[in-house]
C-alpha cells in the first residue's frame, strides 16, 4: 500500500473524504436500523415464543407470557451460574404454569441449556434443549430435532410426570433405579438432563407460590 | 602402549571376498600394444602436454607438466613413441573424452636418469615441488595431489600421520598385498612424510582381517618408537579418511576442513610407497598395484603401468564369459566404466570384472518408508532419507541444509535400504546439479557486473557527448545572440524561438525514429526497447532455420513446430539493425 500521506494537503483531503464516506454510510445504516428495529424485536419475541409453544400449549393461558417474568440471580438448583429468567403463565389471573430456564452442567461434553414448563400442580408440561454440545449421533438425541424417534422423542418422557408421581428420590434413569429410559452408550447425556429436570421440579416445589406472587421487575 | 580405539557411527559389514585375490603375489603385466595416458588424472588443473606426436619418450619422462600448484605432473609409463596427443575416452562413468598422450612402447622400457633426493637436506617446499613433479597423488581413490596434503597445519607441527591400510571395500586387496610385500619401503616413505609434516607419531591403521599385512608392517616398524601399527575392527568404511582418523585418534574432521589443522593427516599406503619411490629412488609415479577380481578365473594383484587398457589387464586374470562391464574400484563405491578398453589411471585401485550373475541389477526401486536404516548405517551421521527426499524433489537448498556435501558417497545407505533406492545416485545427481548452479550463479554475477559496468561506461560516454553538444549549443546560442544583436530588430525572442524550434525538430525526429510500430502510450525508451527485442526475434528466427546455421543454433527443429517460424516473418535487415539499438546505447538522432 502506498503511504502517500506525507504531503499535509493530500492527507487532509483524504481525511475529509474518509470522514464523508463514514458519515454517509453510517447514516444509511442508522436509517435501516431504525426502520427494522420494530420488526426485529417482534421476530425475536416470536422465536422465543415458538419454543415455549412447544412445551406449553398456547391455549392454556391468556397473559402476555414474555412480559410476565422473574429475573433469577445465580440459582444452583437450576444450574444457573449467571442467572436466568422464569416466565409465568396465567389464565384469567390464575397461575397456570412456570416456564423455567435451567442448565444441566454435567453433560457429556459440557453444559446443556434447557427450558422446561412446569404446571402449577407440579407436573412437567414439556422440556426442550436450547443448546448443547453432546456428541452428534450419540448424545444429541436429547434434542428432539435430532432424535431418530420422531413420533415420541426421548425428551417427551418427562411430560405429565411430577416428582410426587414418581416418588421421592425416584426421578432417575432406569439404570440408576428410576423410571426413565435412555439410549445405551449415551447414558451421561440422559442422566444430566433427567437430573437437571428433577432438581428444577424440586426447586419449583420448594419455592411454592412465591414464584407466581413476586411482581415482574420493571 | 596400545592406542585406545574410538568408534565411528554407522557402517556396514558386507562379505569381503578378499581371499581369492590374496593367494598369489603381485604380478607384472606384459606391455600392451599402446598406452593411453590421460593428462587429467588428478584433482585440479589439467597438466599441460609436454610432448608432440612422433616424439620419442623414455620411461618416467614427463609428458604433462603440472598446471598450477593444484595439479600434478604425468609421466611416460614406458619408453616408446608418442603416436598422438588427442582426446580419448577416459576412465570415467560419463564416457567423456579427455586429452591423452598415446604411446606406442618400444619394448625397451628404458628409464630416464633417476635422481634420488636426500630429503633431510632439502627444504620442505622443494620436497613438495619434487613430489608434484613426480606426479604423486593420493592412490586411495581421491587422487588429490599429495604435496598439498603434506603441509603442516597451524603451528607448523602435526600430531599424527596416519597410514591408511584399512582397505575396507570388498574384493580390493592391493594395499594388503603391497603391505605384505613392501612393508619396509612403506615405512621408509612414512618417515619421509613424517619429516615433511613434522609429525610426532605415525599410526598405521589396518583392518583386523589382514593379519599378514599387520604382521609384515609390524616387523618393518619394529624398533621405531614413532610408528605404531594398529589393527582396527573390520567395518566398512573404516578406510574412509575421516572414519579412520576418528577410529585412531577420536578426532572428527569436518567436511571442508583440512585435517592438518586438526593435527592429523591421512595417506593411503600406496601413496606412501609412491613417495618412497619418488624421493629415495627418484622415480616418478608411473604404475600402481591394481586388484583384478570378480568374474575372472584367477583374481590377483598386478603392478600396472598407467595407460594400460583395462581389458588387457583383465586378460591376465583369465576373464570368464558373462562379463558385462568393468567397475573401477570396489562394489560399494566403484564406478562403472563406459568401455572395456579405458586406461588404468592413478585412481584405479581395482578393476572389478562384473557380470549380471555377480552383481545382479537391483530390485525395483520402492518409495522410501523412512525406516531410518540408512541413517543408522551412515558413517557421516547424516539423514540419508531426507537428503534423498529433497534431492528427488529438486529441492537442493534443503538438501544442503541437511548437509548433502558431508556425504562421502560410501554407499552404506543404499546398501541397507529395504526399498532398494539408489540413494547415492540421487546425491551425486544433486551435487553435480548444485555445482552447475553455482557455476551459473557465478557467471550471472560476473555478467551483471560487466553489464552494469558497460551501462555506466555508456552513460559516461553519453554524458560526454551531451556536454559536447551543450557546449556546441551554447556556442550556437552565443552566435545567434550575436547575430540578433547585430541584426537588431528581431528582438531577444527570436533566437530563443529558433532554439526551441530546433529542439522541437530534434524531438520530433527522435520520436519518429523511436516509434517504428504502433505501440501506444509507452515511454519512448520502452518503445525503443520493445522494438529492439521484437527486431531481434524477427532476425533471429530465419537464422535459426536457415540450413547454414542449423548446425549451430540448435538441434534440428521438428517439422510440427511451425508456429515458431510463423511468428517470425523475414524482415528487411535495416529494420532489424535499427531495432537492435539497445536501451543503453539508444542512438540519438545525431548519431544516425
Amino acid at each position, binding site marked *: *500500500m*502506498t*503511504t*502517500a*500521506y506525507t504531503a499535509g494537503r*493530500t492527507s487532509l*483531503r*483524504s481525511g475529509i*473524504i*474518509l470522514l464523508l*464516506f*463514514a458519515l454517509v*454510510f*453510517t447514516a*444509511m*445504516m442508522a436509517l*435501516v*436500523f431504525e*426502520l*427494522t428495529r420494530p*420488526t*426485529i424485536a417482534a*421476530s*425475536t419475541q*416470536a*422465536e422465543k415464543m415458538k419454543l415455549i409453544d412447544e412445551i406449553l400449549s398456547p391455549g392454556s393461558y391468556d397473559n402476555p407470557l414474555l412480559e410476565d417474568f422473574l429475573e433469577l440471580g445465580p440459582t444452583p438448583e437450576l444450574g444457573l451460574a449467571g442467572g436466568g429468567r422464569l416466565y409465568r403463565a396465567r389464565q384469567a389471573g390464575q397461575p397456570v404454569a412456570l416456564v423455567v430456564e435451567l442448565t444441566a452442567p454435567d453433560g457429556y461434553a459440557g453444559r446443556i441449556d434447557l427450558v422446561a414448563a412446569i404446571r402449577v400442580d407440579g407436573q412437567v408440561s414439556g422440556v426442550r434443549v436450547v443448546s448443547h454440545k453432546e456428541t*452428534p*449421533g450419540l448424545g444429541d438425541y436429547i434434542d428432539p430435532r435430532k432424535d*431418530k424417534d420422531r413420533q415420541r422423542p426421548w425428551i417427551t418422557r418427562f411430560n405429565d410426570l411430577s416428582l410426587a408421581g414418581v416418588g421421592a428420590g425416584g426421578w432417575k434413569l432406569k439404570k440408576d433405579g428410576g423410571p426413565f429410559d435412555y439410549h445405551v452408550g449415551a447414558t451421561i447425556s440422559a442422566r444430566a438432563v433427567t437430573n437437571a429436570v428433577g432438581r428444577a421440579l424440586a426447586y419449583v416445589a420448594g419455592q411454592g407460590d412465591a414464584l407466581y406472587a413476586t411482581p415482574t421487575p420493571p | 602402549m596400545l592406542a585406545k580405539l574410538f568408534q565411528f557411527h554407522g557402517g556396514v559389514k558386507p562379505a569381503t571376498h578378499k581371499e581369492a585375490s590374496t593367494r598369489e603375489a603381485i604380478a607384472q603385466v606384459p606391455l600392451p600394444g599402446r598406452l593411453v595416458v590421460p593428462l587429467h588424472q588428478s584433482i585440479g588443473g589439467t597438466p599441460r602436454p609436454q610432448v608432440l606426436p612422433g616424439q620419442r619418450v623414455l620411461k618416467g619422462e614427463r609428458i604433462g607438466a603440472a598446471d598450477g600448484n593444484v595439479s600434478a605432473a604425468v609421466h611416460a609409463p614406458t619408453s616408446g613413441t608418442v603416436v598422438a596427443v588427442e582426446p580419448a575416452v577416459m576412465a570415467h562413468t560419463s564416457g567423456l573424452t579427455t586429452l591423452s598422450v598415446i604411446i606406442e612402447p618400444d619394448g625397451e622400457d628404458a628409464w630416464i636418469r633417476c635422481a634420488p633426493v636426500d630429503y633431510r637436506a632439502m627444504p620442505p617446499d622443494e620436497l613438495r615441488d619434487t613430489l608434484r613433479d613426480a606426479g604423486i597423488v593420493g592412490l586411495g581413490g581421491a587422487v588429490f595431489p599429495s604435496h598439498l596434503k603434506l603441509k603442516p597445519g597451524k603451528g607448523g607441527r602435526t600430531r599424527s600421520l596416519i597410514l591408511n591400510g584399512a582397505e575396507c571395500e570388498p574384493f580390493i586387496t592391493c594395499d594388503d598385498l603391497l603391505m605384505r610385500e613392501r612393508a619396509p619401503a612403506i615405512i621408509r616413505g612414512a618417515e619421509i612424510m613424517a619429516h615433511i609434516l613434522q609429525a610426532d607419531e605415525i599410526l598405521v591403521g589396518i583392518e583386523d582381517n589382514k593379519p599378514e599385512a599387520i604382521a609384515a608392517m609390524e616387523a618393518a616398524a619394529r624398533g621405531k618408537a614413532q610408528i605404531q601399527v594398529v589393527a582396527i575392527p573390520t567395518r566398512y568404511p573404516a578406510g574412509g579418511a575421516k572414519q579412520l582418523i576418528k577410529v585412531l585418534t577420536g578426532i572428527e574432521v569436518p567436511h571442508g576442513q583440512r585435517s592438518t589443522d586438526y593435527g592429523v593427516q591421512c595417506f593411503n599406503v600406496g601413496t606412501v610407497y609412491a613417495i618412497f619411490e619418488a624421493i629415495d629412488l627418484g622415480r616418478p609415479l608411473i604404475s600402481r598395484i591394481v586388484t583384478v577380481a570378480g568374474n575372472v578365473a584367477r583374481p590377483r594383484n598386478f603392478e600396472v603401468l598407467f595407460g594400460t587398457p583395462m581389458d588387457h589387464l583383465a586378460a591376465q586374470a583369465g576373464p570368464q564369459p558373462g562379463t558385462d562391464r568393468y567397475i573401477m574400484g570396489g562394489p560399494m563405491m566403484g564406478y562403472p566404466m563406459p568401455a572395456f578398453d579405458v586406461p588404468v589411471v592413478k585412481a584405479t585401485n581395482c578393476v572389478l570384472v562384473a557380470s549380471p550373475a555377480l552383481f545382479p541389477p537391483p530390485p525395483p526401486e520402492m518409495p522410501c518408508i523412512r525406516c531410518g536404516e540408512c541413517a543408522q548405517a551412515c558413517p557421516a551421521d547424516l539423514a540419508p532419507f531426507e537428503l534423498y527426499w529433497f534431492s528427488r524433489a529438486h529441492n537442493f537448498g534443503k538438501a544442503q541444509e541437511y548437509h548433502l556435501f558431508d556425504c562421502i558417497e560410501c554407499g552404506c545407505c543404499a546398501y541397507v535400504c529395504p526399498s532398494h533406492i539408489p540413494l547415492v545416485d540421487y546425491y551425486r545427481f544433486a551435487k553435480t546439479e548444485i555445482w552447475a548452479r553455482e557455476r551459473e550463479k557465478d557467471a550471472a554475477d560476473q555478467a551483471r557486473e560487466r553489464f552494469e559496468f558497460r551501462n555506466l561506461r555508456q552513460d559516461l560516454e553519453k554524458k560526454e557527448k551531451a556536454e559536447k553538444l551543450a557546449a556546441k549549443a551554447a556556442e550556437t546560442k552565443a552566435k545567434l545572440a550575436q547575430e540578433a544583436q547585430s541584426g537588431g530588430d528581431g528582438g531577444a525572442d527570436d533566437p530563443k524561438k529558433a532554439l526551441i524550434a530546433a529542439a522541437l525538430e530534434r524531438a520530433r525526429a527522435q520520436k519518429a525514429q523511436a516509434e517504428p510500430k504502433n505501440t501506444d502510450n509507452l515511454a519512448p525508451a520502452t518503445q525503443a526497447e520493445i522494438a529492439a527485442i521484437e527486431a531481434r526475434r524477427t532476425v533471429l528466427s530465419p537464422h535459426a532455420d536457415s540450413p547454414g546455421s542449423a548446425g549451430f543454433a*540448435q*538441434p*534440428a*527443429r*521438428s517439422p*510440427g*513446430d511451425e*508456429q*515458431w517460424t510463423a511468428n517470425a516473418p523475414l524482415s528487411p535487415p535495416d529494420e532489424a539493425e535499427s531495432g537492435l539499438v539497445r536501451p543503453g546505447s539508444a542512438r540519438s538522432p545525431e548519431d544516425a
Partner: protein
Amino acid sequence: MDIARYREIFWNGVWKQNTGLVQLLGLCPILAISTNLVNAVSLGLATILVMAMTGLVIAALRNFIPYEIRIPVFILIIAALVTVVDLAFNAWLHGLYLVLGIFIPLIVTNCIVLARVEAFAAKNEPIASTVDGIGMGVGLLLVLAVLGGLRELLGSGTLLTGIDLIFEGTQPLVLLGQDYPGFLTAILPPGAFITLGCLIAARNWLDSRAAARRPSPRPPQAQPA
C-alpha cells in the same frame, strides 16, 4: 460485444477464478456453513447479494475514492452494506437469520468481497463490476451448494433439512433411508476440508481433461529431442 464481455467476466467468476476452488478466498463461510444444503445455498445467495451490491456501489463511487485511502473506504462501504443486509435478514427472514448466525457479519471480512472490489470494481464500470460480483457469488454459491449437498447427504442421508424453516410445510428429502447410519465426520469440520479438497481435485481433473481434449491453439513448443 458487451454481452460477450459480461459472459466472459461471469464465466471467469464461476469457473476460471472460482473463489472456493481456485482463489481459495472466502473459505471460512464456505467450510463452516456448508453443513447442509439449505444453509449453504442461503449463504451463497446472501453473498451474491452483497457482492453485487458492493461491486455496483464501489464501481459507481470509484472515481471519488482517493487511491491511498481506498482500503478503509472499501471496508467501510462493505461493512455498511453487510450490516444493512444483516439487519434486513434479521427483520424479514428471521428463520434464516438464525441459521446463518455469526456468518452474515463475517461476509464483511470474507476476503473475496474485498479482493474483488480491489481487483475489479475499483477499476471497472458499475455494470461489469456487478456482473463480476454476481459471477463470483454464483461461483461461490455453486461450491457451497455442492459441498453442502454432499456433506448433508453423507452425514445424515438427507437433503434440504431445515427447508421447513424457510418454506413452511415443506419436508426434507430422506434419500438414503431412515436406517442410514450418518457418516458424521462429513458434517464436522474435517469433513468440510476433505470434501472441499476433493472438489478442488475434481475441478483440476475436469480442467486438465478439457485441456487435453481441446486442440490447443498454441501447441506447446516441441522440445528439441
